[in-house]
């Protein structure tokens, strides 16, 4: 029905416009095919897998097993422990990775800081360091005995500095520190957005008697809210996909004490180590539904707090 209407739309176009539309579709075709082959069909297949017993390790005949995977999921305490870990980490990760890049961008945007271009390049640079390399660099830097952070803390008089990488109470802080090394991209985007705020608005705020906090709250934050929103959405997806750092650190064992068995790490082990595709797909689907729900709610609320200048939305 819809397809026929689509065809009608095309037929109703005048010949020249139809030619243009066909050319356009031809140019879009690599993405259209890719979207079908690598996004839409696999997404639906992930859902389909959850009702089957696909496992690359065994040659059991493929058949539908109904809601069996969902029953396993509900009874699998590791799934819920991992989800708790992921949420807890997210509550730490999101505020830090939203505020620190913004604060850094505001510092570099300040008229008092000289050579901002130089600073911008160097603060961005660790973002280019390959993930595995930065994990190994930080694993050394945060080493309880030989790491420079603890050397510095001992120098400052802290007699018993934390065991950053092996203590369940400190590991999340360490992971956040490692994550902060990659704020470069977010900082550059924030900075560009800050530079786009018209200076007249600050002058107007000053005339109205606004101080530093006043113009931050009434001018800066509303004007850059689209960028904050974008970073928040990207951050949420990143939190639920977070697992590569612990995977490199401890080869995916979840050490210390299971504290780094993030949802996605457990999913990785299910599908890759045990080759259990259908149960892995069930976990993936659960995570997808959670991400979708959170981002949709945020999207709905965005019209109350995200301000798009010059747009009527």
């Amino acid at each position: 029905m819809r397809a026929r209407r689509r065809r009608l739309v095309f037929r109703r176009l005048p010949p020249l416009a139809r030619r243009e539309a066909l050319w356009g579709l031809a140019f879009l075709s690599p993405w259209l095919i890719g979207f079908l082959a690598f996004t839409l069909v696999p997404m639906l297949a992930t859902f389909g897998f959850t009702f089957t017993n696909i496992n690359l390790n065994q040659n059991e005949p493929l058949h539908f097993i109904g809601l069996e995977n969902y029953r396993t999921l509900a009874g699998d305490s590791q799934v819920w422990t991992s989800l708790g870990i992921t949420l807890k980490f997210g509550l730490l990760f999101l505020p830090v990775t939203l505020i620190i890049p913004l604060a850094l961008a505001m510092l570099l945007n300040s008229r008092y800081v000289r050579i901002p271009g130089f600073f911008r390049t160097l603060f961005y640079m660790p973002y280019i360091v390959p993930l595995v390399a930065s994990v190994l660099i930080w694993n050394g830097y945060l080493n309880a005995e030989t790491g420079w952070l603890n050397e510095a803390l001992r120098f400052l008089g802290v007699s018993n500095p934390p065991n950053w990488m092996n203590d369940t109470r400190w590991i999340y802080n360490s992971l956040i520190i490692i994550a902060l090394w990659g704020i470069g991209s977010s900082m550059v985007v924030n900075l560009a957005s800050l530079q786009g705020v018209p200076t007249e608005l600050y002058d107007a705020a000053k005339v109205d008697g606004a101080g530093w906090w006043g113009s931050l709250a009434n001018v800066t934050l509303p004007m850059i809210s689209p960028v904050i929103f974008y970073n928040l959405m990207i951050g949420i997806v990143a939190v639920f996909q977070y697992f590569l750092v612990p995977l490199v650190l401890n080869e995916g064992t979840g050490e210390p004490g299971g504290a780094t068995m993030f949802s996605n790490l457990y999913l990785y082990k299910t599908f890759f180590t045990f080759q259990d595709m259908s149960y892995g797909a069930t976990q993936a689907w659960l995570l997808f539904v959670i991400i979708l729900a959170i981002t949709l709610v945020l999207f709905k609320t965005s019209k109350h707090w995200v301000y798009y200048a010059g747009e009527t939305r």
Partner: protein
Amino acid sequence: MATSLTLKKIAREKAPAGQTAAREGARSWGATLATVILLAAFLSPLLRMASMALKTNEQILAPDSPIWPAKQAIFTYQGKEYEVFKVPLPEGTRELALYKKGRSESQFIDPANPEAGPVTWQGSWRALPRSWQWSVSWKNFSEVWRLIDYPRLLRNTIAIAVLSMIGVLVSCILVAYGFARFRIPGKGLLFGLLVSTMFLPATVTLIPTYTVFAKLGWVGTWLPLIVPAFFANAYDVFLLRQYFMTIPREMDEAAMMDGAGPFRILRSIILPQSWPAVVAVAIFHLVYAWNDYFSPLIYLSTRPDLQPIAVGLSRFNGIHYTNPALIQTATLMTMVIPVLIFFFTQRFFMQGVVVTGVEK
């Protein structure tokens, strides 16, 4: 009367202006200095990595060694080499060369005054802190080069990165051109769909994709890393489209009047004017492919001979984790190329980051 008033006014305003300038200058120095300190702390892990890479394993195992690359100071006396220690003497700590070892007393030579001959010191020389001097060791690099098989890792990484870069460039240019220039029914919807894939968690498509690649026999080959690149991705299409849209349409139309077809317009009008965006996409992808760990990990886990450098480094860490000097050297050798590419092309890089991040 009026003039003197004005002068007074100027004088009154001038004094605070001078003060303000001084205060501004001080603030500027303060803020810049604070930023320098922040940056130094931010980049200090890189300094530790470089320092470790230049140390010998012997130094790392010595608890009294400095944080910079060093070796124990050596003093040559009468054609023989002697190790230098920090010896506590009544007149203060002196750096002396250990001439004759003994259990409870040893003889030392003062390098500053060797003619004076050996002096005897009471105590065990083993308890003495060593004296270190700046010394850089390049041995780790040659050792890692050999152990990790660096040439092979480089070959694999470059091959994967360049082949997939060709795919990204060709497909993303075509798709971005389609989105930038053609009136297509439902184009807004399609573009929204494209942008929304940026927020799609990769895990939701991963398992069936992996299963299909496994069934096709592609696991253990480079194909899963290269073929998908030929089907465009949202970030690069977005960046290119934004750039293409800034090129005036009149130029297309003039070319069209001259009988140029869509491919001809793309080649002779659009591309020559968008090379900064094209270069940005190429560099973005090179660095991305260089740093990518997860895809090569799952698709090439059974074929170490085909793995790129990120996976090679993580394997190397699994084998040599007890030797931190080697680990940090291998890390340095892994990151040096993307970081150099970044420094040489940072202008394009920054523009690209800004376009994909701000303009949505």
